[in-house]
């Protein structure tokens, strides 16, 4: 019966303005990566005809590829598996203390400079780490951080928090009415899980796994340092080497394309496996959650304690180094200036990312949504590709490619800041998009036809109807974008200028000039800054 009312919505969507701006956005997004890759193809340095074939036959290449895949798979599955029970507990157990702070802390793990993460983990688990004697006595002398263990510990540290955020918000989105109905039907335990909770998780789990998989696939400095040597290398290291030390863009391009194909097709497989499910709209007011059994409750609490310790101790372990030399050694003026620039860039870039994600998720519709009869325009089909593909293209390839391409026309010394903002927005976009999509989908499924039938003007419709509904999701997405862009290091390395040094770059400078204590302190400062930013952003 809704069919009759859906006409105004269609006319609104097919009006020329949105599709024009959408086309422009898609052109910008796909164009950026297209031009970057094109620039690298066009760059002729010692064209090595046999290179592709040679690399193809090099056992080293296959070994690296295998290892990259293996560690990424392990990291993503362990991160998600560990996150599941805790995410559930965070939603179901009303008595867990300091949940909001904990969830904010979770996001901070994203900004942590890899140098600091390595230092923190080593302080706990390294040869002289303070947990090592304990581990040795449990495992019988054999404990060594370096190797797959170290890589997994670091990747779980970085990605488990992401999984927690995503899964807990998904669990929380199950409306009270559904829980109540399940209770009336006396569904408990596994049956409740399968009928009530699983559908909610199913929509995000595959994409989440795919996401974490890709993040670990592209990881590099951490893998090298904690992997214990070049036997543990990812493809990214080879790209870095090709672009930097050999300066052979065609070699880098080949590796990047390989990475694009392998990681991209895996990601595609992952995301095909999941689909967005229709959820009843969340009711306002008191949320009702069923009682959980004492056993599950305590398991959840144990996980909470255990994971909270795991996520905080490496950072706390930095404190002695950081404060040991006193606060005087820190260049406060420089620190404030760098913080200002960092915040400015991060805020603009994340605003940009959120807006783009909103537009793209609004138009990227799927078969289920429009029904079998209607056709999906190719622009809408392209939207998710445009939003997500930046996750697979290595940031270094994108940056260097764009740098080369626009060099004849743009003086990067004057306009580098523009590239910093744009590229950071591109890096944050896949995260924002995938997080925003379920909320937008649920709005469209529940309210769009109804709202469209009111015939409100465009501005009021968005301001009064859509935005209030999406606000919580938008805040969540903005928070992720903010920490991602705040922690950027690689893009600044290519486009940055000393006049607007950002905080991560300052930390790197400090660490490179023997100022390790100051670097640790500045890193804690960065974490603090991100924490305050999140607090303001997620304020009720």
């Amino acid at each position, binding site marked *: 019966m809704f069919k009759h009312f859906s006409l105004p919505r269609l006319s609104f969507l097919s009006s020329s303005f949105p599709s024009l701006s959408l086309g422009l956005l898609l052109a910008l997004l796909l164009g950026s990566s297209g031009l970057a890759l*094109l620039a690298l*193809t*066009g760059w002729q340095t010692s064209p090595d005809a046999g290179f592709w074939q040679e690399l193809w036959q090099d056992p*080293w290449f296959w*070994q690296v590829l295998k290892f990259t895949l293996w560690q990424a798979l392990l990291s993503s599955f362990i991160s998600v598996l560990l996150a599941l029970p805790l995410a559930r507990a965070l939603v179901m157990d009303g008595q867990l203390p300091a949940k909001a702070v904990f969830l904010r802390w979770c996001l901070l793990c994203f900004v942590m400079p890899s*140098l600091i993460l*390595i*230092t923190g983990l*080593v*302080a706990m688990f*390294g*040869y*002289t780490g303070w947990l090592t004697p304990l581990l040795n006595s449990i495992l019988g002398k054999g404990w060594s951080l*370096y190797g797959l263990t170290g890589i997994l510990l670091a990747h779980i540290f970085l990605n488990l928090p992401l999984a927690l955020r995503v899964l807990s918000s998904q669990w929380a989105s199950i409306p009270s009415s559904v829980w109540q109905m399940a209770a009336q039907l006396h569904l408990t335990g596994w049956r409740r899980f399968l009928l009530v909770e699983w559908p909610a998780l199913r929509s995000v789990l595959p994409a989440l796994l795919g996401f974490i998989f890709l993040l670990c696939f592209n990881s*590099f*400095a951490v893998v*090298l*340092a*904690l*992997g*214990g*040597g*070049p*036997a543990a*290398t990812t493809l990214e*290291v080879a790209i*870095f*080497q090709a672009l*930097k*030390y*050999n*300066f052979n863009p065609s070699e880098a391009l080949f590796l990047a394309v390989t990475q694009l194909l392998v990681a991209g097709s895996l990601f595609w497989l992952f995301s095909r496996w999941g689909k967005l499910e229709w959820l009843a709209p969340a009711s306002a007011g008191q949320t009702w959650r069923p009682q959980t059994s004492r056993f599950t409750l305590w398991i959840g609490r144990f996980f909470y304690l255990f994971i909270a310790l795991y996520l905080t101790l490496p950072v706390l372990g930095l404190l002695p180094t950081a404060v040991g030399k006193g606060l005087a050694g820190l*260049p406060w003026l*420089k620190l404030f200036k760098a913080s200002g620039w960092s915040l400015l860039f991060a805020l603009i870039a994340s605003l940009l990312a959120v807006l783009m994600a909103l537009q793209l998720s609004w138009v990227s519709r799927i078969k289920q949504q429009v029904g079998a009869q209607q056709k999906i325009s190719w622009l809408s089909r392209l939207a998710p590709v445009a939003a997500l593909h930046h996750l697979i293209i290595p940031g270094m390839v994108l940056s260097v490619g764009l*740098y*080369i391409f626009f*060099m*004849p*026309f743009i*003086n990067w*010394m004057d306009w580098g800041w523009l590239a910093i903002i744009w590229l950071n927005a591109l890096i944050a976009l896949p995260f924002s998009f995938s997080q925003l999509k379920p909320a937008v989908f649920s709005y469209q499924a529940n309210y769009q036809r109804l709202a469209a039938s009111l015939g409100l003007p465009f501005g009021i419709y968005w301001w009064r109807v859509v935005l209030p509904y999406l606000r919580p999701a938008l805040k969540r997405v903005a928070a992720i974008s903010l920490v991602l862009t705040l922690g950027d290091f690689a893009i600044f*390395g290519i486009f940055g*200028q*000393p006049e607007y040094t950002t905080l991560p*770059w300052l930390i*790197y*400078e*400090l*660490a*490179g*000039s*023997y*100022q*390790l204590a100051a*670097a640790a302190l500045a890193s804690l400062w960065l974490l603090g800054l991100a924490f305050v930013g999140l607090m303001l952003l997620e304020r009720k």
Partner: protein
Amino acid sequence: MGKVILIMKQCLSSFKSNVKWRGLLLLPLFFVGSLSAATLNVYTYSSFTSDWGPGPKLKRAFEEQCACELKYISSDDGVSLLNRLRLEGKNTKADVVVGLDDALIEEARNLKLVQPHGLALATLKLKSELDWQAADFVPFDLGYFAFVYDSEKTQPVTSMAELLNSDARIIYQDPRTSTPGQGLLIWMQAIYGDKTSEAWQKMRQRTVTVTKGWSEAYNLFLQGEADYVLSYSSSPAYHLIAEKSDRYAAALFSEGHARQVEVAALARHSNQLELGQKFLTFLLSEEAQQIIAVNNWMLPAREGVELPEAFSQLIQPKAIGFTPEDIHQKRQAWIREWRSAVSR
């Protein structure tokens, strides 16, 4: 696909000609700019220009005597610096390039990034051990790669052979991603020649981990993760002067040490030649050499520079290694050899 690229290229070239026209419009602005004091653009690496590097102090000292403005443009490190120059080609703003090293000289020459400095080398009082003849680059500091240890915990070894046969734990940097790592590559080749592969395999047994850059490695070492870390023979000077601690020292190896010479040159497309020459001469003045030594923690390239007492406590290694031409030619093969020896 080829057609698409062709069309793109045509679009590009038409765009380029547009840019020229727009450039004409900007010409008056250019003249306004050049009325003020001359600016010298110095391309260098970031730890040189950071507050803890020699950059800011050198800038102050040079601007006092040149009636000009010195502007730093910094890259990650020497290799990024080279890449930036290569990418920018004719569009570069560089007048002077500071911070390439002897391993990169040959590549910079092949790419025609620099031009003759026109200075009389004899008047610069360069260290005789450098035996410097180049007409394009001048050296401004040098350092010996060395393994640094904690003297409170470790009895130092006296040769690379002894190190490889010991049960010490070592951290070094990846030669694919860092300058010291590349230094070790050269060092091992200079000592072991054809037998380097076996030496690397021994090294692998001793290795705790290999890091992307110097700071990760040094940081891990200071945390106690290894007995030796690959760094410079002058690293202990930092601890002596800035921390008043003689705890850390560099091990002197009887085979000799690989040496890194950092160099400066006039950029090929610079139009500030005279000022650039002035800056190069200034870099080798006694004042600048002192600033560089205690801020970049490297050794002076000039003879007889007065330095803090700590520098006389440093080891005095014998230099071994290869010519820039050799390094340029063989580096790839060496890296491959290292890679297959240590990743098994």
